[in-house]
């Protein structure tokens, strides 16, 4: 995998010393939790078999927001099954039942902690079940105390999605994919369209498999974070011959300009592209400059690690993708990490900040209630954090910019100024 990175040169991505995976400071999860979360919201003709006790099936979302939880099956292991080694037979039977009842294109088979403790090889069982032709089986051995960062799950998930994509029959010469970018109200498509470029595929994490299947058709693949989509990037480059470029998500005026310029540059349209977004850039830049004049020398607390939502804004670039936006607005940013406070962890954080090109001071908070104390004595005007921390921030009388509320692109930059000014009032 050799995705070119547009932006700051950075140090290597630190690795988790125990698991050997790239360090990820998001709240940890198990693979069963991560995959059920992502698959709960994904439309499409697939089934999911959880190999676990019934309680783990509680991780499947059941409410009216989701796309058909009856696609999920569970081996509903009892204690006796686990101890007596009956789990394997139950799993094979459950996979067959899922195939017969749903007639899916794809079956995800996901093992939980109990299955792992009982040494049930989910991958082997799933591969050997006799199923009708044409059903793709994806096995995820997910449990037994293996702690994954949310980013690792997304990487795995996206790899499976591109793994199911057919080879391209017809490449679109002047088109690009966007992977790991938030919807922007059509700005990117509009600006690319001005220079004759198009978006080939722009899958979101809750897109149906068909949206991922369009990725091999593009001439270029742009990812917001190559660490988050490493399997996808590798598959596109080696199997489908689609080159990848990593460009930071367009939060803030300069980052938006960099995204559009980067894409234009790849196609040899750098000058045309800069002209294409000149007006939007000027207008957004004026709003940002005016904000900086009105609110000089403000300090912002940037909280990381408070969410387990498998959303891009939590995971892209270690959750640090918005630091530059606040710096652009003139804030002096202090990054607060919720999690272990030991020196070893601090070293990893420092390396991660360096990797992501963030040059801001940081501190570690052992738990969420520590946020109140930190804000009370920190002199912060604003805190960027999960809205679930409203009580803790409120106790320190510091207004919050909720994670997930900031918008991308030039139009987003203007909307963000309005939002933040409103909150500071």
């Amino acid at each position: 995998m050799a995705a070119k990175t547009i932006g700051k040169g950075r140090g290597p991505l630190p690795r988790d010393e125990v698991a050997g995976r790239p360090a990820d400071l998001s709240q940890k999860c198990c693979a069963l939790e991560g995959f059920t979360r992502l698959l709960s919201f994904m439309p499409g003709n697939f089934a999911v078999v959880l190999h676990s006790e019934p309680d783990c099936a509680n991780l499947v979302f059941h409410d009216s927001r989701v796309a058909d939880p009856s696609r999920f099956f569970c081996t509903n292991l009892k204690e006796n099954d686990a101890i007596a080694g009956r789990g394997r037979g139950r799993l094979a039977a459950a996979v067959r039942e899922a195939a017969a009842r749903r007639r899916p294109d794809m079956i995800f088979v996901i093992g939980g902690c109990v299955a792992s403790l009982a040494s049930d090889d989910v991958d082997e069982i799933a591969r050997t079940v006799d199923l009708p032709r044409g059903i793709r089986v994806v096995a995820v051995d997910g449990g037994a105390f293996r702690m994954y960062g949310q980013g690792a799950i997304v990487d795995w998930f996206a790899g499976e999605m591109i793994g199911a994509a057919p080879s391209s029959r017809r490449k679109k010469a002047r088109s690009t994919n966007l992977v790991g970018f938030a919807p922007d109200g059509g700005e990117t498509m509009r600006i690319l369209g001005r220079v004759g470029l198009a978006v080939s595929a722009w899958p979101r994490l809750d897109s149906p498999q068909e949206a991922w299947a369009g990725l091999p058709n593009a001439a270029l693949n742009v990812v917001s974070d190559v660490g988050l989509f490493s399997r996808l990037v590798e598959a596109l480059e080696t199997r489908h011959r689609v080159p990848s470029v990593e460009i930071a998500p367009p939060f803030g005026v300069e980052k938006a300009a960099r995204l559009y310029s980067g894409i234009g540059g790849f196609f040899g349209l750098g000058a045309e592209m800069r002209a294409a977004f000149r007006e939007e850039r000027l207008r957004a830049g004026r709003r940002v400059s005016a904000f900086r004049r009105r609110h000089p020398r403000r300090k912002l607390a940037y909280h990381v690690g408070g969410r387990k939502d498998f959303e891009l804004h939590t995971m892209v670039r270690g959750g640090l993708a918005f630091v530059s936006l606040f710096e652009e607005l003139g804030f002096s940013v202090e990054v607060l990490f919720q999690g272990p406070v030991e020196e070893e962890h601090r070293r990893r954080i420092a390396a991660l900040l360096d990797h992501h090109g963030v040059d801001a001071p940081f501190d570690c908070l052992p738990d969420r209630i520590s946020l109140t104390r930190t804000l009370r004595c920190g002199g912060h005007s604003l805190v960027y954090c999960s809205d679930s921390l409203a009580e803790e921030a409120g106790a320190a009388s510091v207004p919050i910019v909720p994670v997930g509320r900031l918008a991308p692109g030039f139009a987003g930059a203007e909307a963000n100024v309005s939002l933040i000014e409103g909150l500071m009032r």
Partner: protein
Amino acid sequence: MARMFDMPLSNHRRIYGAFLAAHAVPDAINLMFTGVGCKSKAQRQIAMHDRVREAGNKMVWSDIGDAEFIRGPAKRLASMAIETCRRRENVGLVVVTTSAAMEMTGADVESELAAIRREVGCPVIYLPTAGWDGDLYAGYGEATSAVMALAPWGSSEGDSRTVCVSGYLFDRYEPDHAANLREIQRMLGAAGASRGAVFFSGSSMRTLMEAPAAGCHLVLPYARRVAAWAGRETGRRVVATDLPVGIAASARFIVASARLVGLSGETARSLAEAESLRARPALSGARAYLSGLRVGVLAETPMAAGLCSLLLELGMVPVFAGLLDRTLGGKRAFFDALASSAGALRGCLVAEDPSAQDVEDVCRRLRGKLGRRDRGRPFDLLIAPDLWLPPSCVDGVKRVELGFPSNRWHPVSPEPFIGFAGAVALAHRIAAAEASR
């Protein structure tokens, strides 16, 4: 009953019930001695249901990974509990829960609990909550018993007119529950009693530990197992009653309460009749245009029985009751709670612990009975929590969201569903849903 590999519509287990109990006690924390994914079995479930009190800081999880597992996971439990209580300073109760996998490791939790109890300066209860079976109501009931057992019942005989209530399912700090608790207080007052501690009600441990000030004890269906223990261990008079949803069950609640505090049967019945008479005019107005509408109900057994009773009082026709629990008595308890109204439900299909597939099967049968009229809708109205259901079951059906989870219904003013006031408020909601397009 869900098929072998299906997931029931409501799949919450003991670990969530215990968490819910901790959520209902503001100064309690839930220490989850589990793998890293289990956190989402608790706080996430309530995140959209309770918009008043965020539950994220309620929970501390031990994050047992490979390394901790090898080093001895129970050690981490003690260090987490002690460190958390030291930092928070005002913890009133620690509720320790476990997962199936953690119990399979054979970690010696009990010996670590002794160390925790020595250090933290507040009660610590241990609830093994392996998710092999049971449901949230079992977990909530077990937490209720464990917390009640902490109260100093031997310290006094208690006031003979004050009633302690257990088994109130307090799942959020929103105005529906505040109104329910006020209605319980009002009904107890109408029965000549006063309300003591309610397990649980959003009250702190200090308030709950004043429960022995009550001389008698009313047990709601969610804490049925408490009844025998309370009679034996607390020295109080104990009466178990149905969930007071609908006029008939609310009247039985008044009678039970009045008898509990020593009033005669005749006096108790006349107090109940007076309360019922006051509520009936409001219901008869709604009855005029709700009468004859076919209704489906999805709720745990006591609530389903109460709702079906209310629907009959409104002249409506319950055609389907899906009982969303596994431990509250099923069909038998459902029909027992309906008492004399049970006969009126002869045509009602009742399913225990249904999956989405089961509900779809029921709806197919209901449509078959109807023939071509009603454009294929199995029922006109559905009273249910915010659960996903197959489109063939709910397309064109009016909905009233009630129960856990209510992710979309968040009352801004007091809207009870318990007692006489609750019957009237529910009738308003049903009528408003029916009138909606």
